[in-house]
C-alpha cells in the first residue's frame, strides 16, 4: 500500500527542484510569500512559548516544524472558504487572516480569542479530537447547496484518524460529494503515541480507499508540494469533484504542549535528520537567486514589531468580564440564568 502512495515532493532537502514541471510555476514572488508567512508564524510560535515560560499565557501547543504544511495549505485557500483548525493549527489560521492579538488571547484563556475577524470563516480550534471533521463537511455541504464554489478545509492530526468522527465525516463527504479538503498533518506523534501504535497502516492517505475518494501523500515540509497539491484538491472541490484526503507528512519538532516532556517517550535522535522547512525554502531561494539579505532582516524587524504590538495589545486587553460567562449561552437569557447572573454580580460587589 505504501508504494501506491508515494510522498510527492517538488523540491528536495537541499532546495533543488525534484519535479521540474514546476520550474515555471514557482517564482520569487511565490517563494517570498511563503517564506514571509512561515517566518511570521514561527516568530509567533516562539514568542508564545517564551510568554508561557514567563507565565504570561497558559499552556501552549507549539507547531514548529509544521510551518510548511500550515502556510502552504492556508495560502491555497480563497477568501470565502471555510477553515476548521485544531489547537495546533493557528499557524494556518494566522496565515489565513486570524487576528494575532486574539490568538494570544485564546492561549491566555480568553474566549475572545475564538472570535474571527468579520467575514472570515475561521471556526474555533477543535479541542475534542476529530470533532471538527464533520463540521467542515457540513459547512462545505451548505456552500454546495447555495451553489457557490466555496470549499471547507479541515485540519487534523495523525491521532485524529483513530476517532469515529474522522470516519463518519469522510463517509458523509464521500456520499454527498461535498467540497471538502481533509488536510491531515502526520507529524509522527499523538502526544506520546507514535503513528505505528496509532494505526497498522503505513500511510494515512490509503484510508481514502475506504470512501473511494482521492488520497494523496505529500512531503509536508516542502512548502511548494503542500501549496500546489492542496490547490489541486481545492480546485477539484470547487469544480464539483468532491472531497480529497491529503496526508501531509511532517514533524512535530517540539513538545506536544509546553506542559509535555518529549524526552520521556521520544528517542533523542529521532527527527534529527529532518531538514527544517524554513531552511529548506531558504536554500531553494538561494539556489534560485531569490534570497535578499536586506529585505529579510527588514522583514524580521517588522515581524518582531507586529508580534510585540500584539503581545502588548493582548496584555492591555480589557479585563475578562464575569458577565460574558452568562451572556453568550443563549441568544436570550432564560430567567434562571438572569437570576444566577444577577445574584453572582451582586455578591462580587460585596
Amino acid at each position, binding site marked *: 500500500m505504501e508504494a501506491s502512495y508515494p510522498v510527492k515532493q517538488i523540491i528536495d532537502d537541499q532546495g533543488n527542484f525534484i519535479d521540474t514541471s514546476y520550474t515555471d510555476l514557482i517564482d520569487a514572488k511565490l517563494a517570498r510569500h511563503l517564506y514571509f508567512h512561515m517566518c511570521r508564524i514561527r516568530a509567533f510560535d516562539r514568542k508564545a512559548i517564551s510568554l508561557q515560560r514567563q507565565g504570561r499565557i497558559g499552556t501552549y501547543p507549539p507547531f514548529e516544524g509544521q510551518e510548511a504544511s500550515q502556510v502552504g495549505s492556508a495560502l491555497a485557500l480563497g477568501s470565502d472558504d471555510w477553515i476548521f483548525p485544531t489547537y495546533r493549527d493557528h499557524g494556518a489560521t494566522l496565515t489565513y487572516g486570524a487576528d494575532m492579538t486574539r490568538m494570544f488571547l485564546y492561549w491566555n484563556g480568553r*474566549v475572545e480569542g*475564538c472570535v474571527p475577524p468579520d467575514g472570515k470563516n475561521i471556526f474555533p480550534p477543535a479541542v475534542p479530537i476529530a470533532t471538527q471533521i464533520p*463540521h467542515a463537511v457540513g459547512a462545505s455541504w*451548505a456552500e454546495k447547496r447555495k451553489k457557490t464554489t466555496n470549499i471547507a478545509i479541515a485540519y487534523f492530526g495523525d491521532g485524529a484518524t483513530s476517532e469515529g*468522527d474522522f470516519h*463518519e465525516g469522510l463517509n458523509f463527504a464521500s456520499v454527498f460529494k461535498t467540497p471538502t479538503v481533509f488536510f491531515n498533518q502526520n507529524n509522527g506523534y499523538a502526544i506520546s503515541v507514535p503513528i505505528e501504535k496509532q494505526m497498522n497502516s503505513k500511510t494515512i492517505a490509503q484510508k481514502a480507499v475506504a470512501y473511494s475518494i482521492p488520497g494523496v501523500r505529500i512531503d509536508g515540509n516542502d512548502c511548494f508540494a503542500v501549496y500546489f497539491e492542496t490547490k489541486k484538491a481545492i480546485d477539484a472541490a470547487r469544480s464539483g469533484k468532491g472531497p480529497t484526503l491529503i496526508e501531509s507528512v511532517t514533524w512535530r519538532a517540539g513538545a506536544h504542549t509546553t506542559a509535555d516532556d518529549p524526552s520521556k517517550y521520544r528517542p533523542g535522535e529521532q527527527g534529527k535528520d529532518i531538514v527544517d522547512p524554513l531552511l529548506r525554502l531558504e536554500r531553494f531561494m538561494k539556489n534560485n537567486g531569490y534570497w535578499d539579505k536586506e529585505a529579510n532582516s527588514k522583514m524580521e524587524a517588522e515581524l518582531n514589531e507586529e508580534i510585540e504590538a500584539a503581545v502588548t495589545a493582548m496584555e492591555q486587553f480589557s479585563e475578562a468580564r464575569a458577565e460574558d460567562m452568562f451572556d*453568550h*449561552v*443563549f441568544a436570550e437569557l432564560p*430567567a434562571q440564568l438572569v437570576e444566577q447572573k444577577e445574584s453572582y454580580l451582586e455578591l462580587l460587589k460585596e
Partner: protein
Amino acid sequence: MTMKLKETPHKKNETALLTMVQAINDGMKTMLESDETTIILGEDIGRNGGVFRATEGLQAQFGEDRVVDTPLSESGIIGTSVGLAINGFKPIAEMQFMGFIYPAYDQIMTHVSRIRMKTMGRFSVPMVIRAPYGAGIRAPEVHSDSAEALFTHMPGIKVVCPSNPYDAKGLLIAAIEDPDPVLFLEPMRNYRSSRQEIPVEKYTIKIGNGMKLRQGEDVTIIAWGAMIPVAEKAADQAEEKGISCDVIDLRTLYPMDRDIIAESVKKTGRAVVIHEAHATSGLGNDIVSVINDTSFLYLKAPIERVTGFDVPVPFFALEEHYLPTPKRVLAGIEKTVKF
C-alpha cells in the same frame, strides 16, 4: 442565502383533525414551505418517511436536497448539521429513537450546545434534534430510553417535550424558529393515541411555558409527555376519593417554568412529580429543588416523586412494571395527603 418565502395560504381558523405524529409532520411541512433554509436529516426519513412516518411525504414534496436520507451515523448527522447550521441552514435532525442519540452525545455536548458561547455569538447553531422517546410500545432493548436529564444538564440547548398534537406542532415550529439548538422529545406512546383539531396555518407556542391542565386544591401533579395521560387518570381516581388536583404539563423541560410550579404548590402545599426516567438524577429532583427554593414555607408534606426505577429500562415483557402507572401515582397522591 436567499430566503424565498412561499407560504401556502391557508384559510384563517381552518383546522384539521390530527394525531401527534401527523401534527409533527405538519409542523415540519409548514417550515419547509416557509423557510428555504430548513433541511431535514436522518436515517430512513426520505422515501420511507421515517420509522414512525413523521416525515411521510416530505421528500416527495421537497426533494432529496431538503429531506436527506443520511448514512447510519448519528455523530455524522449532528456533526454535519453543526456545519450546515453555522453556514445558513436550519437543520432538523431526526434521531430514530432517543436511545440512539448517545453516539452523537459528544457532538451535542461539546459543540451544538457551546458554539454560541465559545464564539461570543459570532457563530450559532439554530438546529432542532427530534427524538422519539419512552417505553410502552413493546420495542426492543435500548429503544425505550427517556434521557431528558442528560440534556437539561447541558447548558446551551433547550429541551422541549409536548404531550398532545396541538402543542407538538406549535412547539416544533417555535423550536425550528428558535435561534438556539432545541432537543425536541416526542413521546412515542402519544404519537397516535389521540387526535385533536389543530390549526392548519402556522402557529407557535412559546418555549419555556408550562400549561395548567386542570385546577384543584389539594395536590399539584407535575408531568410531561407520555406521563400526562397517566397523571390525568390518577387525578381522576383521586377526584373520586375527594382529592382535587392541579395538573401541570411542563411542556418545556429547559428552561423550566418555575412560576407555574411555585404558584400551584403555594396553593396546594403538596406536590407529586411524575416522570418515566430513572429517579436518581432525574428531572424530578430539579422540580423538588424548585419547590424547595420557591415554596418551602407552603409545603404541608414531603414532595412525592413517582418515576421509572433506578434500573435500565427492562425488555418489554417487564416494561409496564418499570413505568409509572396511575396506581403508583395515586399512591403518591394519597401519601402526600395523608402525611
